[in-house]
């Protein structure tokens, strides 16, 4: 028989951990599925067993994750690590790849807390070995205790780039340069949002402290960087860029780039949930109400997968989605849900007040997409260039799904995760129309690669053969 759960939670980051623990404490039979081997999600990755001799390298925030994981472990929610969800049906059937074995479960309700991914921004040479994302560098640090050997170059914009720089410095890593690609005009544009942001003084203070830490360490910080290029044949050999009107070049074997984070929307998209274009965060996000309920019956979203709000906001949104699940499944009434939700909602609102300021302050330059050189690869998998996309648009292609048949763009193994956002923006820019009207790739399961042998292991009842 296919196992049935009252509530399925996807993702063991702050949103999923808080949702599962809250729901289990309210008496729901909860199962949490996460493709990582241990709880924590992105921010608290490896929090229960970090390979670092000195976890202080990762900063104070990291510790909050240990409390979350502990509360989750004690809550009675069933935990399925190393268990990826590759299929979601409107009937709330979940296709799982559970430690390499395919199986199915069903659920009365589902909370999707799959989190974010780093914004892919194409630039010349970004497919070369030796070019990675800052998040990738951080994952290697958190889960494998690995750091760059020598002379790493960091480039891009966003808090995570500064955080990684500080974490590396604390670990004794030598940083060759931090290339700040934040448009200088952002600060002025962000200013009107500053008063609201001051209510989240702690977040701002932490950001300033990171900057001071980097400055004090004497890291070479280059401001106003544009035209980033990765040079090399078989691998990265040098990083080229422009700053202060001059062409510069740094020899390096490792470049870590970062341009902010965006919701990983393939999961929500595969259900046909409507997504809107967030013109401040420059990304798609699923449309949901204040409890996270989406247009797909019984499916809620929580955390950064629903729109970027950071780890604390993710935690609060997870709790709200759990309270709503408990109401929908008849454990509590609406009055009790609202009573329990009130303090959480207040904390969430406070946390969110800082976002508009941060979003604008770290907004990547629009030219990164609009001025993409014609020979730059946009789709890493099918190696489709910006020029080929513009050419397809010139020949009458009006949207991302049509583009697939014109160029195969978005049809490789990553299923458009790397090129999707760029493609929507680039087509919009080329046609002079808003991204919202251009739309995005339709996503079909499987969400994760699943082998024929794994599927063949399923017996007639939909349960994995023993």
């Amino acid at each position, binding site marked *: 028989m296919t196992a049935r759960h009252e509530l399925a939670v996807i993702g063991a980051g702050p949103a999923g951990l808080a949702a599962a623990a809250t729901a289990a404490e309210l008496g729901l039979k909860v199962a949490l599925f996460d*493709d990582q081997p241990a709880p924590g999600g992105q921010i608290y990755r490896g929090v229960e067993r970090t390979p670092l001799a000195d976890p202080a390298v990762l900063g104070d925030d990291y510790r909050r994750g240990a409390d979350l994981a502990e509360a989750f472990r004690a809550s009675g929610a069933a935990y399925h690590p190393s268990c990826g969800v590759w299929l979601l049906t409107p009937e709330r059937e979940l296709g799982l790849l559970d430690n390499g074995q395919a199986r199915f479960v069903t659920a009365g309700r589902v909370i999707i807390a799959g989190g974010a991914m780093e914004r892919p921004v194409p630039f010349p040479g970004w497919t070369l070995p030796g070019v990675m994302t800052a*998040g990738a560098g951080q994952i290697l640090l958190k889960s494998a205790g*690995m750091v760059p050997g020598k002379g790493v170059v960091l480039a891009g914009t966003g808090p995570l780039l500064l955080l990684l720089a500080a974490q590396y410095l604390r670990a004794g890593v030598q940083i060759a340069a931090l290339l700040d690609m934040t448009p200088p005009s952002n600060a002025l544009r962000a200013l009107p949002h500053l008063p609201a942001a001051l209510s989240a003084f702690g977040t701002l203070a932490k950001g300033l402290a990171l900057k001071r830490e980097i400055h004090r360490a004497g890291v070479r910080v280059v401001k106003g960087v544009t035209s980033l290029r990765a040079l090399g044949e078989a691998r990265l050999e040098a990083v080229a860029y422009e700053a202060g009107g001059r062409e510069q070049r740094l020899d390096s074997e490792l470049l870590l780039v970062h341009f902010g984070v965006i919701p990983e929307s393939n999961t929500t998209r595969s259900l046909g949930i409507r997504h809107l274009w967030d013109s401040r965060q420059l990304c798609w996000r699923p449309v949901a109400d204040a409890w996270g309920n989406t247009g797909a019956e019984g499916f809620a979203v929580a955390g950064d997968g629903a729109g970027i709000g950071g780890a604390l906001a993710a935690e609060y949104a997870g709790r709200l989605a759990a309270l709503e699940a408990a109401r929908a499944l008849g454990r509590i009434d609406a009055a009790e849900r609202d009573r329990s939700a009130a303090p959480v909602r207040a904390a969430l609102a406070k946390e969110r007040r800082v976002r508009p300021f941060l979003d604008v302050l770290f907004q990547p330059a629009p030219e990164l997409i609009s001025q993409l050189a014609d020979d730059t690869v946009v789709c*890493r998998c099918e190696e489709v260039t910006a020029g080929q996309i513009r050419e397809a648009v010139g020949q009458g292609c009006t949207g991302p799904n049509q583009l697939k048949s014109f160029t195969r763009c978005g049809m490789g193994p990553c299923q458009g995760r790397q090129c999707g956002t760029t493609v929507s923006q680039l087509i919009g820019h080329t046609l002079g129309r808003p991204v919202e009207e251009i739309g995005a790739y339709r996503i079909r399961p499987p969400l994760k690669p699943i082998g024929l042998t794994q599927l063949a292991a399923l017996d007639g009842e939909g349960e994995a053969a023993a």
Partner: protein
Amino acid sequence: MFKKLHDDGAERVTVTIDGREARVPAGETVAAAALIHGLQPFRTSAVSGAPRAPYCMMGVCFDCLVEIDGTPNRQACQVRVAEGMAIRRQDGAGETAP
């Protein structure tokens, strides 16, 4: 490109990376192990044969695809090492002979 901050004293398993034996911490991802042991590149691209290696480490770019125990197209950043595992560079789309 990368080095270990310190020896974490973790239990080790033996794998082969392109035929060479390596002792790597149990529980580590194939990508982390192969990066430390110098697998370069991880694969060549399906269209132009360009060299590729891990980019995102979180499962969304698919540039870390390698052959593991004879099966191509495995995401090295999502698979954990296991005793006796054979990890190989992948050429192109990674179709294996029938």
